[in-house]
């Protein structure tokens, strides 16, 4: 019986790779937000059709994605933590570091807003209000791009939330963290895309948005073949080029408009932006 299964599996595998000239697959390590929002599903089939490459998306936390790049376990990275990306570029682990797109973070929380975050002038004050009111706040706590940004904001606000009774760390992805915040009547920092996608099932509303410090910048980069000779050089070059070409940038600019009435991501290429983000960056 087991042998039969192996045979079947082998057949399926053979069937999948039985193209005319099989090209080596490209491993793209990226954050959960790009994958969960559906953006990659909207873009990658086009790329695969055009070039014949197969892209294997590994959607993980930014920390893990960058680690995969450093250890040569991926060909291309698409992440949103410039501070954490910098050492990789400087130490030469990645090359071809390119600005692809951005979106923004928003502060969400319970409708009644016990910390009066709505009244805040800027995001720093908003964070201070939460801390002062001792209102529950759920942090990702997973070294993801979102978590890194949140920590930077606390730092700017002059607050160390670690160990505070109102401060919780979920250690999970954005979706699970939003769910926990919703159940616990807590505030949290989220990327707009994930929030919009889950909005219907949450008891959370956007309480603060639009501060330039809430901008969420995505970069794409190739793993340096000089460090890791086994990377798929041709494929990764093609993939980076694909993300930067005007047609793709155009698609990014329109992705999600039909569902949410506004785009989830804004392309780096300014001339293709159809809608300006509500707060001018």
């Amino acid at each position, binding site marked *: 019986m087991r042998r039969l299964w192996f045979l079947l599996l082998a057949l399926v595998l053979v069937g999948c790779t039985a193209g005319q000239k099989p090209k080596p697959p490209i491993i793209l390590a990226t954050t959960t937000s790009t994958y969960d929002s559906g953006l990659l599903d909207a873009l990658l089939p086009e790329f695969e059709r055009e070039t014949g490459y197969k892209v294997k998306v590994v959607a993980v936390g930014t920390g893990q994605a960058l680690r995969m790049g450093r250890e040569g376990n991926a060909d291309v990275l698409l992440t949103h933590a410039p501070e954490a990306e910098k050492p990789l570029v400087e130490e030469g682990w990645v090359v071809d570091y390119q600005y692809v797109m951005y979106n923004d973070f928003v502060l969400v929380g319970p409708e009644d807003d016990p910390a009066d975050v709505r009244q805040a002038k800027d995001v720093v004050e908003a964070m201070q209000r939460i801390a002062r009111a001792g209102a529950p706040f759920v942090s990702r706590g997973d070294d993801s791009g979102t978590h890194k940004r949140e920590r930077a904001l606390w730092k700017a606000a002059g607050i160390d939330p670690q160990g505070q009774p109102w401060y*919780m760390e979920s250690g999970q992805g954005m979706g*699970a963290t939003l769910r926990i915040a919703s159940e616990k009547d807590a505030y949290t920092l989220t990327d707009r895309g994930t929030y919009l996608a889950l909005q219907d099932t949450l008891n959370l509303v956007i309480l603060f948005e639009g501060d330039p410090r809430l901008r969420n910048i995505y970069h794409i980069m190739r793993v340096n073949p000089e460090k890791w000779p086994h990377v798929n050089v041709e494929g990764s070059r093609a993939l980076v080029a694909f993300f930067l070409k005007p047609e793709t940038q155009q698609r990014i600019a329109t992705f999600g408009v039909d569902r949410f009435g506004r785009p989830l991501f804004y392309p780096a290429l300014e001339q293709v932006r159809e809608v300006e983000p509500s707060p001018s960056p």
Partner: protein
Amino acid sequence: METLWRGLVEALYLLLSLDPTVWRIALRTLAISGSATVLSALLGIPLGIWLVLGRVPARRFWLTLTHTGMALPPVVVGLMVALLLWRTGPLGFLEWIYTPTAMVIAQTILATPMVAGVMVSGLQALGQEARWQLLGLGASGFQAAWVLVQQARGALLAAVMAGFGTAVSEVGASLMVGGNLKGYTRVLTTAVVLETRRGNFARALALGFILLGLAFWVNAMLTVLQQREADPDS
């Protein structure tokens, strides 16, 4: 290979340096999974005894159900418990979601069929003969069950061990109903998931080794007990 080695070294370091976070996670794991084990033993052992020795209508059906329960997927249990405990759910008013209580409930649901199933096998191994012999010596149903359970003490401990193994190694349900909240509902398995997501593979592995060590330690204690019980002289 290198990551594995570093994981081992880091595990030793974390343990020997008495890293308070790690110790607290380990102790919390023991507390939550231990509670779930005790609860599942309290439910599963009588259930197993009843399934074998009781007057059970459609016994074969219930036995099959128990054996299916031994393969319950944790994420399904997690989802069902979460749906019940979410504030929008029927038991939302208890405010148990994302608390250790919720984790104990989910792990108990997973471990109970395991405990009952192992108990069933242990009692069935004694055979119809032993039961008939007791009844044929004038034992009441209760007296016969009491002697048989004493005879199956080995199985009883094996059942508890299986229950603990299920509870402590499960991650899907704990993550869904516990929320992996730092210092509150974070246990070894969910911490392993988190550290992996963070890219701290060595630390993840270190936590994994600690989990293995914990499971080994608990099972070793139970095995010592079982060996003592298995001695026919006692």
